[in-house]
């Protein structure tokens, strides 16, 4: 670590410079956008003017949130060496990755120097993998039987299952394609000397990516300044892999969620209980008097639950006694049924002649009676709504494999939601900026797009389900840090406005601003310049351009993530309606179809430029306006050009081969 020059207020010069640039960005940005809203909108063409100014406002907020992130930018010193004797489990999560890959990572994990146990969490339940792993002294865990026919919750479920099967104080989580460095624990466990530290995230860096990174796999701005900025606000993110977590924090989270979810479910159930029972009774026809009487008893029991809860008795005790009373009701019903049944059997003439009706039949044993009274076979189950009601007044979560789910299951990306919950309980997190694992990134456009879609969908699910602005226990800055990441995934809508505006101007001559006056440029250009300076200073030589390109160029993916997550959270629709067709035929030709919207956008932009030239030649266009829009279109095309590179990218091995051939031919 380089020696740090501190200013009087304890900031390094670099930190101070960043703050000054952030302030300048905010002032110049507001100077532009306020003027845009107040003065410049061309209301005659509101249908494009308003979307454009909204898109610009979106981008400005994005930039301001980035500024807030950078305000507390911090580089942590090296962690102190960890004390000896901590117990650590290393988890390698896998579903269907090739065995060689999983075992490669598992062996590297086994060779981590700090004493630990290594486990493969095999969601694919592969006997072959188990045999290889156990032969090499590596643990193998798959889902317990409890998970049969219950929601599996993907990776979060896999980890939650392993949490109950292991007992280390800390766990290192690794994706199957993240090969760890032997020092990974020695360099990070020391942070946990701080008793409130719950999580340490290290970067995800990929080794199978060419320097020009055609698929935008590396995220040097995120695993660097952004995480370091979030860290400054105690909001370093958990990113699913290459992170070390304190078990106690996760378990506390799981237990607290369990308690609050139980309370919530109980209150909800009690709220509707009377209605449900009354409705069930009304729907019973003639001949159902016994059931009606049983329901009356259940209704009275529910009243008692309410009374006891309002007296402040423990939920577990109250619900346990309720379940006992309900079980007694069921047992009575079964006993009555059997009494009647035996009376019938004994009265059937000739039955004893055909078969042997002896004592063993006359008395149904207690075991059978007990079993037939249990909730799943109970006669009370005849009224489905009442059965559901009884189940929900119950501290067990029958619908889930485990009552306690430490890793959040509300999203397809469990990491962000879990991390936010940890922060809201007052735990701390750290970002350790040192590459301690070699990762493998997707090598084809199709997988890359699927992966980005999933991340974006997961983030949107969290935004809709547990919006950071509404969570208790988070500081204002922490809320903004979570919002910043969610906000950045909304860029798809802005991209559409940025494509449409120049096209509309060049084809129709309609300007979304009142005039391209000097004032417009004087307010806009300084902001754009200072914004780029901020990126340059913050990024300090890292390549941020790919990221900027993809944040606009993948606009169809981003838009789809928002609409599908909205449909999933609010309309109960399935997230994945996409089938991945991977036929050989399609691999033989370039996958242009995957970026069709981008190609159409590029064609439209080019045609619009041609139209603009024609209009100029005909003397219809304004030279200044057209020039600005030509530059704009050129910028858009430069952004979108990344998808052409991405489509043509043959994968890392093929890229290596072709580079070797080039060198030889030279």
């Amino acid at each position, binding site marked *: 670590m380089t020696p740090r020059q501190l200013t009087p207020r304890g900031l390094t010069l670099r930190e101070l410079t960043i703050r000054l640039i952030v302030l300048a960005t905010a002032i110049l940005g507001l100077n532009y956008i306020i003027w845009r809203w107040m003065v410049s909108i061309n209301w005659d063409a509101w249908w494009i003017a308003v979307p454009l100014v909204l898109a610009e406002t979106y981008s400005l907020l994005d930039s301001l949130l980035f500024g807030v992130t950078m305000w507390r930018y911090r580089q942590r010193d090296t962690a102190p060496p960890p004390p000896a004797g901590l117990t650590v489990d290393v988890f390698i999560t896998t579903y269907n990755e090739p065995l060689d890959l999983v075992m490669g990572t598992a062996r590297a994990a086994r060779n981590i120097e700090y004493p630990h146990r290594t486990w493969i969490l095999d969601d694919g339940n592969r006997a072959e993998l188990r045999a290889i792993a156990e032969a090499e002294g590596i643990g193998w865990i798959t889902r317990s039987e409890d998970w049969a026919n219950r929601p599996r919750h993907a990776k979060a479920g896999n980890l939650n299952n392993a949490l109950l099967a292991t007992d280390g104080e800390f766990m290192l989580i690794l994706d199957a394609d993240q090969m760890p460095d032997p020092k990974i624990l020695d360099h990070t466990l020391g942070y946990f000397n701080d008793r409130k530290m719950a999580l340490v995230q290290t970067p995800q860096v990929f080794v199978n990516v060419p320097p020009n990174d055609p698929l935008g796999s590396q995220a040097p701005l995120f695993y660097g300044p952004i995480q370091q900025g979030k860290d400054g606000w105690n909001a370093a993110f958990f990113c699913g892999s290459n992170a070390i977590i304190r078990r106690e924090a996760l378990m506390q989270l799981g237990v607290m969620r369990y308690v609050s979810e139980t309370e919530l479910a109980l209150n909800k159930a009690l709220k509707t209980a009377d209605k449900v029972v009354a409705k069930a009774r009304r729907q*019973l*026809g003639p*001949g*159902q008097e*016994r*059931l009606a009487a049983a329901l009356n008893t259940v209704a009275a029991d529910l009243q008692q639950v309410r009374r006891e809860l309002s007296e402040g008795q423990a939920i577990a005790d109250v619900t346990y006694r309720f379940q006992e009373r309900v079980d007694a009701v069921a047992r009575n*019903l*079964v006993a009555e*049924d*059997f009494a*009647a*049944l035996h009376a*019938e*059997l004994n*009265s*059937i*003439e*000739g*039955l004893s002649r055909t*078969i*042997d*009706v002896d004592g*063993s*039949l006359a008395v*149904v044993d207690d*075991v*059978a009676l007990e*079993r*037939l009274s249990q909730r799943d*076979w*109970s*006669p*009370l*189950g*005849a*009224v*489905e709504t009442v059965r559901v009601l009884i189940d929900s007044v119950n501290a067990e979560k029958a619908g889930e494999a485990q009552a306690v789910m430490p890793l959040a299951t509300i999203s397809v990306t469990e990491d962000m939601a879990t991390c936010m919950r940890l922060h809201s309980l007052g735990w701390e997190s750290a970002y350790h900026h040192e590459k301690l694992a070699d990762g493998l990134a997707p090598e084809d456009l199709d997988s890359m797009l699927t992966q980005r879609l999933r991340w974006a969908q997961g983030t949107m699910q969290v935004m809709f389900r547990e919006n950071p602005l509404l969570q208790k226990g988070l500081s204002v800055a922490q809320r903004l840090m979570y919002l910043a990441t969610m906000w950045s995934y909304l860029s798809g809508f802005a991209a559409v406005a940025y494509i449409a505006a120049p096209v509309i101007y060049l084809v129709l001559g309609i300007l979304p601003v009142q005039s391209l006056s000097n004032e417009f440029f004087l307010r806009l250009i300084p902001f754009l310049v200072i914004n780029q300076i901020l990126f340059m200073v913050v990024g300090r030589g890292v390549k941020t351009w790919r990221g900027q390109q993809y944040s606009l160029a993948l606009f169809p993916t981003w838009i789809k993530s928002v609409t599908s997550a909205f449909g999933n959270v609010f309309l109960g629709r399935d997230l994945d309606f996409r089938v991945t067709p991977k036929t050989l035929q399609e691999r033989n030709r370039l996958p242009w179809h995957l970026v069709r919207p981008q190609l159409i956008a590029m064609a439209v932009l080019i045609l619009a430029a041609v139209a603009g030239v024609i209009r100029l030649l005909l003397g219809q266009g304004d030279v200044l306006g057209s020039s600005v829009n030509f530059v704009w279109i050129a910028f858009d095309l430069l952004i979108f050009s990344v998808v052409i590179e991405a489509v043509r990218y043959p994968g890392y091995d093929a890229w290596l081969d072709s580079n070797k051939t080039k060198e030889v031919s030279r």
Partner: protein
Amino acid sequence: MIEFTNETLANGVGVIRPVGRLNMVSAPHLGANIDALISDGTVRLVVDLAGTDFIDSSGLGALITGLKKTRQAGGDLRLANPTAQITAVLEMTNLNRVLQPVASVDGAY
């Protein structure tokens, strides 16, 4: 929640097929179906349980009542194709010794 598709075979055997859950609410319907067949003169009955996912103690009661009534009318009631849960309940209560289920409707008589 429960439906009955009944038929009378060429040999005069009545087949009752309860589809759904045979429980405290639906058991009286089974009784009514049996009564109807008996009053039509069909007294040799098979209850085909292939579509019956579940039975509780009330459902068992309805079957035994059906057995009694068919016997009184000079016929019989037999069970065919029990699903796993029904087999378990019959075995646990020893009722499989009274109502021994058969694998198919055709083999019932």
